[in-house]
C-alpha cells in the first residue's frame, strides 16, 4: 500500500479522497490555489502546498507544478479526482514518468476512451449497441450534410471531452450554424481541441451509466447502474442507483456490455460507461468516463463498495477485493447536486461568502462537502459545492429521506439549487419515475412560491428584530461578512 498520496484537486472531491486516505492510514498532500488557502481540503491534509493563483490554468491545471510538489513531498501516488487533469493523458504520463503511481487508468486508456469517436468504434467492435450517427470528426459542411441524412434532431458533441461542454442539441437546420460555432468555441476553451462530431438525438431516452472496476490482474466487474437522466444543459442534477428503468436482466446485459468494452480497452481502475436507454429498454453506448464520477456515492450506498478505496488498492497493484457475484444491490440511493446557482433565475451562478451553514445528518444521510462558514464561493471553479446523498430501504423511503435532509440543509450567503431539489422531490413525475433526459428543461418549472404562513412569520421576525434594536439601542453592524449575522441579541421578551 502507498505511504503518501497527493490529491490533485479541490472542493468536496478532494475532501472525499483525503478521507479515504486517512482511513487507509496513508499520509496526504493537498495542493491549493491562492483562492483556496483556507479550504477544507488544505486543512484536512497532512501537508499542503500552494501551486499558483486562482484561475485553474495557473494552479490546478499546472501539470509541471503538481509533479514538482509530488516529488518534493515524496509521494507514492497521485489521485486526480474528477475534472481538472483527471482525464488528461499528458498528466497521467507526466506522473508515471516521475515514477509516481497515477490513481486512475493508464494514459493510453484515457487517450483511447477520451476520444469519443474512437471509444464508439471500440464499443462497436465488441458488439455493444451505439447511438446511430456519424462517429467521425468532420468539417462543418460535412456535419450539416450528415445531419440532413440521419435526420433532426441531432446532437453536436465535442470529440475530446464530456461534462456537457461543447454539447448542443440542434432541432432544425436553421439552428445549425450558431450551434456549431458555440460548440466549437466551448470545446476549444474546455479541452483545448475544437473538434466536434454528430449523432442522432434520441428522444424520450434516459441516461443510465454502469460503474466498472478493473484491476491490473485482468479482473473486471461492474457495480450496477446509475440513473442520471435529470439534467439541465447536459449537467446532471440528480442521480439514483439503481434505475427504475433497469431490471435484473437488463442490468446483467448492460453490465456485461460495459465489462466487455472495458476489457477491449485494456482498462484499469474505476470507470463509467454511459448509455442511453429508450422506452423499449434498448440501450446504446454513448461514451466512457475514465475517472471517478461525481455521482459515485449512490453506487457506494447500494453496493457497500468504497470505490475510492478500491481505486487506491488497484493502483497499488492489488487485486479487486470482491468478485462479480459479491456485488449485491440493497435499497435505493439518491444524490442531489448542491450547486451555487439560483434555480429561480435560470440557474445563474451565485457567488459570495457562506455566512451560515447547517448541515443535514441522521439516519441514511451522507453529505460530501467542502463547505465551511466563512468560505468564499467564487467564479473560478465549478459551482458544485456539496453533494447530498441518502439511502433508503426503497425508492419511496429514499425520496422522503431526501426531502427531510434537504429541509435540514441551510446555507446563507449564496443562492443554491436546494429549492430546485425540494420541488423535484415533490414532483409527481419524479416520484413515479416518469422522466427522461429532457424532463428538467421541458417539463419541470420552478417558481418562487413561499407560503403565506411563512411570509407572516418572516414579517413578524423582521418587526421584532427592529423593535429590539429600537428598545436596546444597541449598535449592531450590518451583516456583511461572516460574523455579522451572529448578533448578540438575547431573545426578545415582551
Amino acid at each position, binding site marked *: 500500500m502507498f505511504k503518501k498520496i497527493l490529491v490533485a484537486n479541490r472542493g468536496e472531491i478532494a475532501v472525499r479522497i483525503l478521507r479515504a486516505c486517512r482511513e487507509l492510514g496513508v499520509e496526504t498532500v493537498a495542493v491549493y490555489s491562492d483562492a483556496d488557502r483556507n479550504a477544507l481540503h488544505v486543512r484536512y491534509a497532512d501537508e499542503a502546498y500552494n501551486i499558483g493563483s486562482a484561475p485553474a490554468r495557473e494552479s490546478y491545471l499546472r501539470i509541471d507544478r503538481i509533479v514538482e510538489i509530488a516529488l518534493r513531498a515524496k509521494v507514492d501516488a497521485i489521485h486526480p479526482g474528477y475534472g481538472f487533469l483527471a482525464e488528461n493523458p499528458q498528466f497521467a504520463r507526466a506522473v508515471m514518468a516521475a515514477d509516481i503511481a497515477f490513481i486512475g487508468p493508464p494514459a493510453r486508456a484515457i487517450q483511447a476512451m477520451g476520444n469519443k469517436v474512437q471509444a464508439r468504434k471500440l464499443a462497436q467492435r465488441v458488439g455493444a449497441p451505439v447511438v446511430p450517427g456519424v462517429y467521425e470528426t468532420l468539417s462543418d459542411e460535412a456535419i450539416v450534410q450528415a445531419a440532413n441524412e440521419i435526420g433532426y434532431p441531432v446532437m453536436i458533441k465535442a470529440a475530446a471531452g464530456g461534462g456537457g*461542454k461543447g454539447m448542443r442539441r440542434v432541432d432544425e437546420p436553421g439552428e445549425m450554424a450558431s450551434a456549431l460555432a*458555440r460548440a466549437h468555441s*466551448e470545446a476549444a*476553451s*474546455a479541452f483545448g481541441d475544437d473538434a466536434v462530431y454528430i449523432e442522432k438525438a434520441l428522444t424520450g431516452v434516459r441516461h443510465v451509466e454502469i460503474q466498472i472496476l478493473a484491476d491490473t490482474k485482468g479482473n473486471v466487474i461492474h457495480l450496477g447502474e446509475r440513473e442520471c437522466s435529470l439534467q439541465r*444543459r447536459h449537467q446532471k442534477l440528480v442521480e439514483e442507483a439503481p434505475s427504475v428503468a433497469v431490471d435484473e436482466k437488463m442490468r446483467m446485459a448492460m453490465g456485461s456490455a460495459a465489462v466487455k468494452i472495458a476489457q477491449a480497452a485494456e482498462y484499469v481502475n474505476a470507470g463509467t460507461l454511459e448509455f442511453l436507454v429508450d422506452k423499449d429498454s434498448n440501450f446504446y453506448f454513448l461514451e466512457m468516463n475514465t475517472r471517478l464520477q461525481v455521482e459515485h456515492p449512490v453506487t457506494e450506498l447500494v453496493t457497500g463498495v468504497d470505490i475510492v478505496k478500491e481505486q487506491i488498492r488497484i493502483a497499488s497493484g492489488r487485486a479487486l477485493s470482491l468478485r462479480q457475484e459479491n456485488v449485491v444491490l440493497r435499497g435505493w440511493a439518491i444524490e442531489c447536486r448542491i450547486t451555487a446557482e*439560483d434555480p429561480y*433565475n*435560470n440557474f*445563474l*451562478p*451565485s*457567488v459570495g461568502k457562506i*455566512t*451560515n451553514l*447547517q448541515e443535514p445528518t441522521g439516519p441514511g444521510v451522507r453529505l460530501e462537502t467542502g463547505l465551511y462558514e466563512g468560505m468564499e464561493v467564487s*467564479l473560478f*471553479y*465549478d*459551482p458544485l459545492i456539496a453533494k447530498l446523498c441518502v439511502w433508503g430501504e426503497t425508492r419511496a423511503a429514499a425520496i422522503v429521506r431526501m426531502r427531510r435532509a*434537504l*429541509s435540514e*440543509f*441551510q446555507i*446563507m450567503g449564496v443562492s443554491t439549487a*436546494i*429549492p430546485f431539489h*425540494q420541488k423535484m422531490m415533490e414532483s409527481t413525475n419524479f416520484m413515479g419515475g416518469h422522466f427522461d433526459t429532457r424532463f428538467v428543461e421541458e417539463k419541470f418549472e420552478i417558481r418562487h412560491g*413561499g*407560503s403565506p404562513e*411563512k*411570509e*407572516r*412569520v*418572516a*414579517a*413578524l*421576525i*423582521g*418587526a*421584532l*428584530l*427592529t*423593535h429590539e434594536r*429600537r428598545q436596546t439601542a444597541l449598535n*449592531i453592524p*450590518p*451583516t*456583511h461578512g461572516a460574523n*455579522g*449575522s*451572529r*448578533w*448578540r*441579541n*438575547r*431573545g*426578545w*421578551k*415582551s
Partner: protein
Amino acid sequence: MNYTVLIGERTYEIRPDANQTVEINGEPHRVDFRNIEGSGFYSALIDNRSWQALVERDGDEYRISIDGELYVVTVQDERTRKIQKALNKTPAASGEFILKAPMPGLVRQIPIQVGQTIPQGQGLIILEAMKMENELRSPRAGVVQEIRVKPGDAVELGQTLVIIH
C-alpha cells in the same frame, strides 16, 4: 410601537405588546422569540407553532430564510412611515428594467437591438462565466432602450448591461 413590514407587494402591521403578545394585522398571537446564541439562528414559537429562521441584515432590509425559503423584509416604524408619506414617494418599481450583470464574465452575444420590442423571457445577453454560456433573459415585455455593452466586453458584477422600457 407599531411597525409596517413590506414583503414584495404585501404589507403587515405588527405591534409588539407586553406579555409576549404580538398583534399581526390586528390579530393577537403569543410569541416566544429567541436568538440561538452563537449561531445565526432564531427560534420563534408563535401560538406554539415552532419556526426557525436564519437572518441577515443589510441596511434597512432583512433577508430571512425559513425552511430554505428566502424572504426580503423591509421594516418601517411610524416615524419613518410618516416621513415617507409626506414625501409622497411610492416605493417599488418604475417603468424601467435595468439588466445588471449577475456575475463577472465575458459578453458573448447580444441577440437584441435598440428600439426592438421584446416579449417576456427574451434573451438579452449571452454571458460566459465558469466556462458555461449563460443566457440572461428579460423578466418582462418592453422596448430595448439602451445596450451598454458589446460582444467581447469583460463585465463586472453589477455592471449595467441593458435597459428595457
